[in-house]
């Protein structure tokens, strides 16, 4: 499957896109684990918060469809999927 990186995810991954092979039945969280092994745990930690959820400002698109953040990690993938990982800067907030 093709994985595209947008925003801060690109610098974290070190590439714009790449091909990744995932086992049948894999979920988005499995993909992130695979990517963590490839790019380092720091990369995985930039996406997930260690409590089973996505960090604030992380968006995942499957075939161009924006997945609800609270459900995204449990969405099933296939090797024909195209996944976009977007990390946004934390918003400006107060002085």
């Amino acid at each position: 499957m093709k994985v595209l990186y947008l925003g801060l995810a690109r610098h974290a991954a070190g590439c714009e896109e790449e091909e990744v092979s995932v086992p049948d039945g894999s979920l988005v969280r499995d993909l992130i684990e695979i990517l963590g092994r490839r790019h380092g745990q720091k990369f995985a930690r930039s996406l997930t918060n260690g409590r089973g959820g996505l960090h604030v400002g992380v968006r995942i698109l499957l075939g161009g469809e924006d997945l609800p953040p609270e459900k995204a990690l449990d969405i099933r993938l296939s090797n024909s999927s195209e996944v976009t990982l977007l990390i946004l800067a934390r918003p400006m907030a107060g002085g």
Partner: protein
Amino acid sequence: MDVHGDPAALTEPDGWVRTICQGCYGQCGLKVHRENGVVTEIEGDPDFPNSWGKTCAKAKAYFMSLYDPNRVRVPLRRTNPRKEIGVDPGWEEITWEEALSTIAARMKKVRAEDPRKLLIATFDWGTMETAMLWASAFGTPNIKWHGGGYFCGNALHAVSYMTNSTFHTAIDLDYCEYAVLFGSQHGFMGGVNPNLITQKMARARARGMKVVVVDPVGTNAASKADVWLPIRPGTDGALALAMIHVLVNEEGVYDAPFLKYQTNAPYLVDKNGYYVRGGDGKPLIWDAASGVPRPYDCFSGAAALRGPEKVSIDPALTGEFQVEGVSCGPAFAKLKEAVRAYTPEKAETITTLPAAQIRETAREFGRAAKIGSTIEIDGETLPFRPAAVHAYRGAFAHKHGTHTHIAIQLLNLLVGSLFVPGGAQGSDAVGPDRSWEPVPGPDGLMVTGKIHHSSVFPPSEVAPPELLELRELFPISCSVSSAVGLSLMDHRKFGIPYDPEILFVFRANPMMSRVSPEDTGRALRNIPFVVSITREFNETAEFADIVLPDTHDLERLDMFPNRFDLLPEIDSWFWGVRQPVVKPYGQARHWGEVLLELSERADFRRDFYEILNISWKLKDGCRLDPSRPYSWAEIADCRARSAFGPDKGLEWFRANGAVTRKRTVREMYPRAFLESRFPVYFEFFLNVGKDVAKLTREMGLSWDTSDYVPVPFWKPCADYREHGRGEHLYAVNYKVPFHSLSNTSDNPWLHDLTGRHPYANKVLLHTDTARARGIHTGDLVAVESVAGKVEGRAKVTECIHPEVVGISGIFGHWAKNRPVGRRDGAHFNSLLPLNLERMDPVSAAVDSCIRVKVYRA
């Protein structure tokens, strides 16, 4: 009339134009009259939901900033490499093409090396999101060096998010009957949303609402209050804790059902302060009905409170229990015990307020809350708590400000006064049509439901810093902008793994609005290439390498500049447009257009568009096609049509102003419907503190982690002295209603108004203090701290605490090409040093009371 020599402006038809003000955070509706391409009248828009037809002096004075002959007219390049305060940059005029190609070349190099080397400083509050999305597309997370240190004081938003799940705190003035304002001028033309909230305050006062103002200075709010409590600076936390003590330990006044069923007050806590958890890791409560421990979520809190059915569980709020050999008690009991140390008599020695007054204020507040009462609105029966406290920068911009704000918010929580009629509020806990609302997070505590927010719970990860804001070391801070200045002065000390190289500054002036201009100048010098997009030649622009002319608020287009998190107490949701009334001055361009152009030239336009498509959820037919460039106006049109349908594009908004929709009862007063719990005990501080302590020790940094405790406390600011009353003077800062941040003090009309106002841009001294120093009203006086010295004209008054020197503003600007108000008045921020010792270790708020000497200059 000569409109800056721009004949194109004259082609616009005459008439009224509806737009949105940007004079402060308020986003008030304006009607602006244009004749022959010239602005001739400015009025409040009576149909605009956020300002009810009113506008203030800042908008009325737009004429002078719009037609200011000293505006930046063309792109400029620095010729003098020496960047110092007061040094002429030696500007030379260049073309836009030359400027943009120079900037884009630097950006391409940095983006290829490490995009984090680019930093943005902006405080364009309504439209900052676009800058954030642009920065994200470029690849930098460094967007936090705001210019608003003067305004909110950092410790505001983190505690607000923790306790009400929104960015701001507010009061339901439609029903409130008793309000206590701590260092706040809420409802008196200070703070956010002033035109709306001041009108609501006036109505509330007319029907008899009582207002108590706690402030060392007799501010605009204090002077209109029923009771003014002139407190010693930096001691508001002690007052709040004493009031809590009176309520819970002396009077037994607290909203027990709310605390039991909708907060973590009954969670069992062991002797080390941690929750006692069951086998599944869930915190336990003690069910007094059955005499056994149960998981905290064994009932629906909201259902239990709404009734008529009541759950059979009765969570204990007091007592000592044994759970599998562990001694424990409810969190509420820990809180009750912790505040016993803050008797009114003890608080009197700290605050200088009489114990009897403290006790009476607490009792009045408790009585006014009418605990147990209900009210029916639009067919819904809701808890009625017509008493609220509200705090702002004056209270918590101090060394231990996070805990001060927690203590103040606890007053609301203990009487059940949050998101109910008459009580304390947040800005936008529940979104339009419940598009977001707080959800239960870890341990059932509330997490804001907004997808992209800056909440602090759950806290962010403690890790070696990679962000210039050092968020990794301030994981419970929402706005860590003060830390950016600190790290920019010596980023290697904090382990930042790259060298900052480009800074974009627009609609911000850190040299004046952050503390210590000398240190801010050092920080700016450490960035090799600084680009300022600015309307006026401000103090930060004097450190820039390239200056680009920005548009005025009456020249710019912004789709949906109204952010709901900045607009508490609105009755209606609204989505509006700020539209150009006249053509831009000279060669001015909106900073957004400049960023758009730079994304094209630096080869990341496709990424930027894709991120806009995703973030704004642009629908098919409105999505930006990455293969072609769009103008700023085209993007605004796409966004409008995507949100409201093909008939409501940019032109519809230009003609009609805004889409509005009344907020429902459930959106305004959601407490009775929430399943998430409010925190009154902050257990998660413990592990965060341990993590920060471990990491900073490994990094060799001296770091105070003693504030990471789960119950609030009061500790003195660095300069506080309890004894020797009258010996020491503390300088404090306060706001006046007709100025905002640092960008209004050079407006000739506002400058004139300032000169006539008794308390604006003066050095306020108490009568006794002035007499002892031989100072009279009108004398030029010097105010000197460890960090700097400023001068201003004295105003001798009874309306200030005797130990306090009051300095308003931001005044005293010094930029060479900003002649009005130049060197006129005292610049408060010059008195404050920037260092860790004077920062709140949790929020990174800079302590803004400082010991000073005052003498005739």
